[in-house]
């Protein structure tokens, strides 16, 4: 065998851990930037000082998070070249474009305007400063767009062809890459999830001030902004998540079947397994509670189309593996110098299944001579582990509906001017602050783990993407990165908690809790 599975697993763990840490910072930046736009728009429209104070205070927390989070994603780009060299080469022609644009967006647009946001209060007019805040939000969100275009291409590699001479995928249509339906759905779903996280953060901190009965005017206005923005965002997340399910049903059938633990192709419309215990070995779900029609409606938007089950997908993929063997055979001949028309035609006819042929390399170096048993084993590998996907997805969805309840209840009691007595709700919100991050990380896990065994769906298996490194090197760098990111996370928590405790008093306007208490103390003295 030409690859070591432990190296692949360690490289995956390192990349996953880095992405997980990076994505702790990103959602708050995405959502808080728009909350700043809303607060500052209120300030520009009404001229009330409290809205300026809200923009400056939440802007401070935004600044801490931005400073902690910026460049934490850069180690993923380091890892592409070092740990995932074959992947990098294979996709560099396509992947490089959105990553380069993201770099320009992140560093030139976002960073420039973040500086102006903090230092431009006395130098710009109200409207000009609002424009700057808007551009900060736009820059942050556009950065996410380019990253998710790159990621969407890994899930649904459109607009590219494999070139056997350069041994890489080459771009054939930039428009197809940019307007990839998977990327578009991922973008709107992901940024909306970030808006929910930021709204819950502002709602939670404001609730804490309300429970402590401090800075209530400031807190109730912040609460109102977060409740409105959060309610709209969580509805978007749920609707766009449904759209994501539909897109998966179209182009990522195996991921959808694994998430739903749908082993058999059921008669249309497919039932949705609300809960159960998937048993991958026996290919069944124990103790399943099924809801009629729902999966069919989500995945096909119809009541008369089937959703293909895992067993049938495996049969389909066995066929693609055999086609991939023919592509592999032609590729070998082409690279050996036989460029006759029949060989080229054979390659053209089967090259879209080359990736499936490559799955056999786990079992044999002689792909073209693979036995039926080896083909069956490779077909089994096309199915990701169902159990973790099944439960991660359900926890994420369950949390989504909890957020809907929280934002709807917040909005309702706020509109009825009856929020203060609802201490149970305020406490629930404070304890729910970390939950959007849990849901977001689970969503990321479902998207990326559900793509296995591929780095690029149907094109390049993960096992062939990783560099041939020593496990020791990977252990050492993994521990080092974990230490760096854990330190950053601890510093972020320390600074955030410090400024949250200070609250708007940290603005030094003399209008808020700590400064008033200090003044009163001085007067008494």
């Amino acid at each position, binding site marked *: 065998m030409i690859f070591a599975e432990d190296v692949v697993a360690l490289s995956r763990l390192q990349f996953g851990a880095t992405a997980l840490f990076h994505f702790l910072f990103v959602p708050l930046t995405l959502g808080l930037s728009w909350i700043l736009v809303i607060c500052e728009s209120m300030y520009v429209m009404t001229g009330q000082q409290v809205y300026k104070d809200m923009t400056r205070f939440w802007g401070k927390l935004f600044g801490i998070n931005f400073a902690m989070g910026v460049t934490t994603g850069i180690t993923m780009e380091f890892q592409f070249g070092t740990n995932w060299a074959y992947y990098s080469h294979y996709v560099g022609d396509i992947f490089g474009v959105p990553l380069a644009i993201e770099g320009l967006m992140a560093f030139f647009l976002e960073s420039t305007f973040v500086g102006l946001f903090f230092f431009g209060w006395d130098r710009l007019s109200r409207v000009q400063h609002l424009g700057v805040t808007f551009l900060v939000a736009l820059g942050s969100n556009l950065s996410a767009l380019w990253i998710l275009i790159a990621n969407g291409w890994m899930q649904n590699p459109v607009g590219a062809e494999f070139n056997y001479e350069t041994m890489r995928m080459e771009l054939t249509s930039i428009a197809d890459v940019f307007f990839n339906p998977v990327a578009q759905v991922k973008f709107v779903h992901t940024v909306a999830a970030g808006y929910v996280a930021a709204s819950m953060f502002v709602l939670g901190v404001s609730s804490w001030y309300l429970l402590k009965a401090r800075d209530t005017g400031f807190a109730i206005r912040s609460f109102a902004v977060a409740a409105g923005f959060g309610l709209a965002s969580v509805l978007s997340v749920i609707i766009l998540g449904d759209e994501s399910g539909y897109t998966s049903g179209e182009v990522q059938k195996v991921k959808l079947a694994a998430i739903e633990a749908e082993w058999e192709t059921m008669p249309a419309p497919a039932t949705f397994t609300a809960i159960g215990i998937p048993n991958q070995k026996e290919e069944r779900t124990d103790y399943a509670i099924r809801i009629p029609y729902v999966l069919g409606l989500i995945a096909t938007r119809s009541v008369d189309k089937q959703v293909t089950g895992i067993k049938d997908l495996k049969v389909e993929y066995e066929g693609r593996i055999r086609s991939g063997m023919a592509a592999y055979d032609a590729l070998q001949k082409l690279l050996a110098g036989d460029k006759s028309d029949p060989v080229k035609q054979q390659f053209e006819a089967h090259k879209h299944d080359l990736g499936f042929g490559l799955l056999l390399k786990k079992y044999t170096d002689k792909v073209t001579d693979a036995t039926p048993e080896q083909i069956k084993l490779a077909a089994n590998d096309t199915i990701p582990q169902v159990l973790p996907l099944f439960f991660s997805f359900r926890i994420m969805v369950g949390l989504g509906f909890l957020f809907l309840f929280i934002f709807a209840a917040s909005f309702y009691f706020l509109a009825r001017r009856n929020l203060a007595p609802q201490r149970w709700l305020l406490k629930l919100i404070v304890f729910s602050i970390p939950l959007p991050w849990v849901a977001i990380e689970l969503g990321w896990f479902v998207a990326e783990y559900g793509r296995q065994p591929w780095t690029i769906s149907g094109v390049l298996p993960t096992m062939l993407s990783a560099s041939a490194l020593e496990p020791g090197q990977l252990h050492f760098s993994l521990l*080092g990165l974990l230490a760096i990111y854990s330190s950053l996370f601890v510093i972020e928590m320390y600074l955030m908690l410090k400024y949250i405790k200070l609250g708007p008093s940290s603005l030094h306007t003399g209008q808020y809790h700590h400064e008033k208490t200090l003044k009163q103390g001085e007067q008494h003295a």
Partner: protein
Amino acid sequence: MQLPSFDRRLALEITSVLIVKCTLLWLAWHAWFAHPLAKDMNMPPQLVRQQILGAPASGPALRTPGETPK
């Protein structure tokens, strides 16, 4: 530009953290990632061919990305 005292403190804290962070990331790059096999997302195609096909690197000369066909 004169900043209020709390802003000055925050600016100092953030600047310190950014300096430490950039230093740590640079050290991480230097220690583990300074010699990527795929520089600028490119490798010699022979190496990729060896990985994908498990064949020896020797064989007919192949074009590298960007090279024009002869």
